[in-house]
């Protein structure tokens, strides 16, 4: 195929033809709105809904009094399906500001919103602790509270002794704030009952969790629940699991005997869904005088909620980034009064890379070595933690090619040594990143019709990352059919099981299943394993109008039970350690910043990013993924932070005017390149994950560039004007 395929849904999206969750308007639809707690912790002692009920058009008000109807879906990281174990409206307990305390349902969204604002609650407030340093937090050793084998600490060699012996040492502390993913599409569910069967339209990355979680919460057979999520307007981890509003819509719809839509407004989304938790990193590096790493100690404190333990997973990546013979990674969880935090694009890897790769830059300066050379000198082909080889690792190629394209050779090492004529300081920074390669069991069903149509049903969700395009591209490349003859059905639990799509395994799991189904199709049609196919002729030859085949794929080393887990709605994630190898994607980012002479505004003026994601499945959407990841990195480094007032809890800047994401003017030219070497082990197509690794390392590359420009180390995100003034 000569031309890479454009996004298959681009036209429909531009024309508004794509149906997102809340676009569904079944007849008789009623609308919900949530009232939320205004205290940071405590109890609802009285709730007065009379004013709300008096608003014309209000049909139903649910409060904790109605809690009996609902069970918790359990926390997704503890065997359940919910973003947190706490299900609002089941009791009078308030765990954080912004927690829903009532649902109002009315004939119009306006009446519902108006009535929700009129719900009056009286509280008994308790003292609260919302940040890492607050009195009253509870600090836990993760290894002691999370079952062995999950998110373990890392202990290779004797890092403390090797650090103490090292002639060059770096010891720095880095702070990362809470952040919110803010996908454009608001959280929303449309719940419809047909007899005792429930259908939910909702943008999710995990239709399985929504389905199985709702069955648990509502006490009904899972066969009676269907979830459809053909498109999500961004996910970024925000939609990883069942959110708390969905079952409320379902309960209201069941009570009223009419479909109910519940759209959660932006300010409430800051509190009713997960967020990237605050984390603090102490990184110690020990090296020889010429910069060979001897030891690293990476210690992290990460925020979690009172009610759940969201696991920290920072050291999994940092322990693999270089060939460091002695590594100790230690992670603690800090219980605070918030909703349970969760995954957000490059969830742990972005903060981990910020800390670790800034420390590596400090080491480069401590040893007087060029930061690219220092990284190349510490590269490895072997996973230092497991001792097994990487499935593929082209980090050195990323660094070399990036340096070449960026013109790194022209950099002068001394901070503040590069300036423009008007006094503007120029800084060049580099950082590497990695992201674990994972895969999940996947079922794909393929149907060919004698009108030439190929229909694919596969486990996976389209969040704008382009999975539909990658699937169509795979079918087109394999069969030689036209792109517009391929239909793709993702995110529908009635078709095939829908495992969580996240962690950059979506495409890397769906495509191998589609590939296997294509092979199965060829076998069933008596066709050779490769080469263009005339489907009509092939079907005619076996005397059929259509044919349907199915394939199930598992990750390397995954037992057959993985498929059963998938069908039972459980998670079945393999990686990054596989029986014979360790899989990671890699990236190198090169960044130029300009710092104004007097006011010191930081402008990112140029980025070059080179990625090793195995074979590139869809060049157009892959480049777009990387560009998006870089923009996320710019936001995470220079703009974004969710503000917390410790007296009140919750998040203060809970809208898109005050939660500062980058705008176009903040985004420079981003040059993207791929190593494009197929991974020989992870799957038949040679693809590794891409969506998250793209963001990993952007923030430290910027911070390192700021150091190069100004001579000041910035160890706290976001880096704002007052920090460089």
């Amino acid at each position: 195929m000569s031309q890479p395929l454009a996004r298959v849904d681009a036209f429909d999206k531009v024309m508004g033809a794509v149906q997102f969750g809340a676009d569904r308007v079944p007849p008789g639809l009623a609308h919900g709105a949530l009232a939320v707690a205004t205290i940071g912790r405590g109890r609802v002692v009285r709730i007065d809904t009379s004013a709300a009920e008096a608003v014309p058009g209000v049909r139903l008000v649910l409060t904790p009094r109605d809690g009996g109807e609902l069970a918790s879906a359990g926390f997704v990281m503890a065997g359940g399906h919910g973003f947190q174990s706490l299900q609002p409206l089941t009791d009078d307990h308030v765990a954080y500001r912004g927690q829903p305390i009532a649902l109002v349902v009315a004939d119009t969204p306006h009446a519902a919103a108006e009535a929700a604002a009129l719900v009056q609650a009286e509280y008994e407030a308790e003292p609260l602790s919302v940040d890492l340093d607050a009195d009253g937090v509870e600090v836990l050793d993760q290894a002691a509270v999370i079952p062995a084998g999950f998110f373990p600490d890392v202990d290779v060699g004797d890092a403390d002794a090797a650090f103490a012996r090292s002639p060059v040492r770096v010891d720095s502390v880095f702070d990362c704030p809470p952040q919110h993913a803010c996908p454009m599409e608001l959280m929303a569910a449309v719940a419809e009952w047909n007899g005792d069967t429930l259908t939910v339209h909702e943008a999710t990355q995990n239709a399985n969790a929504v389905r199985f979680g709702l069955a648990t919460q509502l006490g009904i057979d899972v066969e009676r629940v269907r979830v459809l999520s053909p498109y999500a307007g961004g996910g970024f981890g925000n939609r990883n699991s069942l959110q708390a509003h969905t079952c409320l819509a379902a309960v209201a719809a069941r009570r009223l005997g009419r479909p109910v839509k519940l759209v959660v407004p932006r300010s409430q989304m800051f509190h009713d869904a997960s967020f990237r938790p605050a984390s603090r990193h102490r990184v110690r590096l020990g090296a020889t005088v010429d910069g060979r790493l001897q030891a690293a100690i990476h210690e992290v404190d990460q925020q979690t909620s009172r009610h759940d333990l969201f696991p920290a997973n920072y050291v999994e990546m940092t322990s693999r980034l270089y060939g460091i013979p002695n590594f100790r990674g230690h992670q603690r969880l800090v219980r605070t009064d918030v909703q349970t935090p969760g995954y957000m694009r490059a969830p742990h890897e972005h903060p981990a890379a910020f800390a670790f790769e800034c420390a590596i830059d400090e080491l480069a300066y401590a040893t007087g070595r060029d930061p690219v050379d220092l990284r190349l000198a510490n590269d490895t082909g072997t996973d230092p933690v497991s001792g097994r080889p990487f499935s593929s690792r082209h980090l050195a190629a990323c660094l070399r090619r990036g340096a070449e394209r960026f013109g790194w050779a022209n950099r002068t090492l001394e901070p503040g040594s590069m300036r423009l004529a008007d006094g503007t300081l120029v800084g060049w920074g580099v950082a590497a990143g990695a992201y674990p390669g994972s895969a999940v069991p996947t079922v794909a069903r393929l149907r060919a019709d004698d009108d030439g149509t190929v229909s694919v049903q596969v486990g996976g969700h389209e969040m704008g990352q382009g999975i539909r395009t990658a699937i169509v591209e795979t079918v087109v490349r394999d069969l030689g059919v036209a792109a517009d003859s391929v239909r793709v059905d993702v995110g529908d639990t009635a078709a095939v099981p829908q495992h969580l799509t996240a962690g950059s395994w979506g495409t890397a799991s769906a495509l191998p299943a589609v590939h296997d189904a294509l092979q199965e199709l060829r076998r069933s049609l008596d066709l050779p394993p490769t080469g263009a196919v005339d489907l009509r002729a092939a079907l005619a030859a076996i005397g059929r109008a259509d044919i349907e085949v199915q394939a199930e794929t598992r990750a390397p080393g995954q037992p057959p039970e993985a498929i059963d887990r998938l069908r039972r709605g459980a998670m079945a994630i393999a990686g990054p350690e596989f029986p014979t190898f360790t899989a990671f994607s890699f990236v190198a980012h090169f960044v130029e910043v300009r710092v104004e002479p007097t006011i010191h505004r930081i402008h990112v003026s140029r980025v070059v990013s080179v990625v090793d994601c195995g074979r590139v499945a869809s060049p157009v959407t892959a480049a777009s993924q990387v560009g998006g990841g870089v923009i996320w990195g710019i936001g995470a480094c220079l703009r974004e932070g969710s503000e917390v007032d410790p007296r009140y809890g919750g998040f203060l800047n809970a809208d898109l005017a005050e939660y500062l994401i980058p705008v176009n003017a903040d985004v420079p030219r981003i040059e993207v390149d791929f190593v494009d070497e197929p991974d020989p082990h992870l799957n038949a197509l040679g693809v590794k994950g891409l969506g998250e690794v793209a963001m990993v390392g952007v923030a430290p590359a910027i911070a390192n560039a700021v150091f190069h420009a100004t001579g000041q180390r910035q160890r706290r995100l976001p880096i704002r004007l007052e920090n460089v003034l």
Partner: protein
Amino acid sequence: MLTTRPFTYAAPTTIADAVALIDTGGPGTKFLAGGTTLYDLMKLGVETPAAVVDLGRIPELAIVDTTGDQLVIGAGARMCDVAEDPVLLHDYPALAESLSLAASQQLRTMATVGGNLLQRTRCAYFRAGAPFACNKRDPGSGCAAREGIDRVHAVLGVSDSCIATYAGDWAVALLAFDALVDVVGPGGERTLPVADLHREPGDTPQIEHTLAPNELIVRIRVPPTDTGRASTYLKIRDRESYAFALASAAVGLAVDGDVVRNARIALGGVATRPWRARAAEESLIDAPVTADTARRAGRIAFADARPGRHNGYKIELGARTVANALLIAAQRSVR
């Protein structure tokens, strides 16, 4: 809280009708222009008018005439149109820039230059409603910002009851040029300097300006000035577009040979109202604009600043912003 309470709506076509309607609409009736402040705050439950009088159908309010000695800009003119007025762009770049650097193109297309003057603060505690104490929203309840996250709050003109920043840009630039505001009420027309339009919070932060609720802004006038051409509006913010000022300076200069004959400096993003820095202006008279005199003027402008917990950086940032703006304006005086 996100709410939409019912309200009544009227759309008169003459100024007289608009004033009559606001008088008969009952207490709390509000004029509505582009709605980018009013509807926003209504959805947040911060503004709760029982009735609104839409000014969008009154042709007279949209008249703009920049061809005469003084600029005449109807209150109903859209920000996006005024920002592109050729006379402003050429002869009053500070005015044009204060508009084009504000909000986003979408907002500027909706918003009017009259409504812009009366936009309200972005203090998050004010906007968010319960549970936050806010004297501006709920007089007497206290001020959550003073002991809270006051990073974007004011350092000039603050009081014990409120430290909210006046968020707009346009009024700051108008203030530098001694603009006038023509208003009409039931008793007829009156004119006031834009300098007399906004109030410091004192102990009544809920009263932000000096107009009566039934007074309508008809137009803004900018008298002739020798400081228009060599002027600039420099706005420093948290991102490179689409954000309110952390600090801004509207500066205009009249330079004779090497020395300053007339200087105008007004500050935004740092004060509770558009803020004129007269002492800083005077420090420049009969002196050349150099990096040193500019920096000194900047420092003088912030001599009375009163920092809070997290906004102390605004003093240095604001001083440098003034200094940079002066240097830009001085450069424009030699073109």
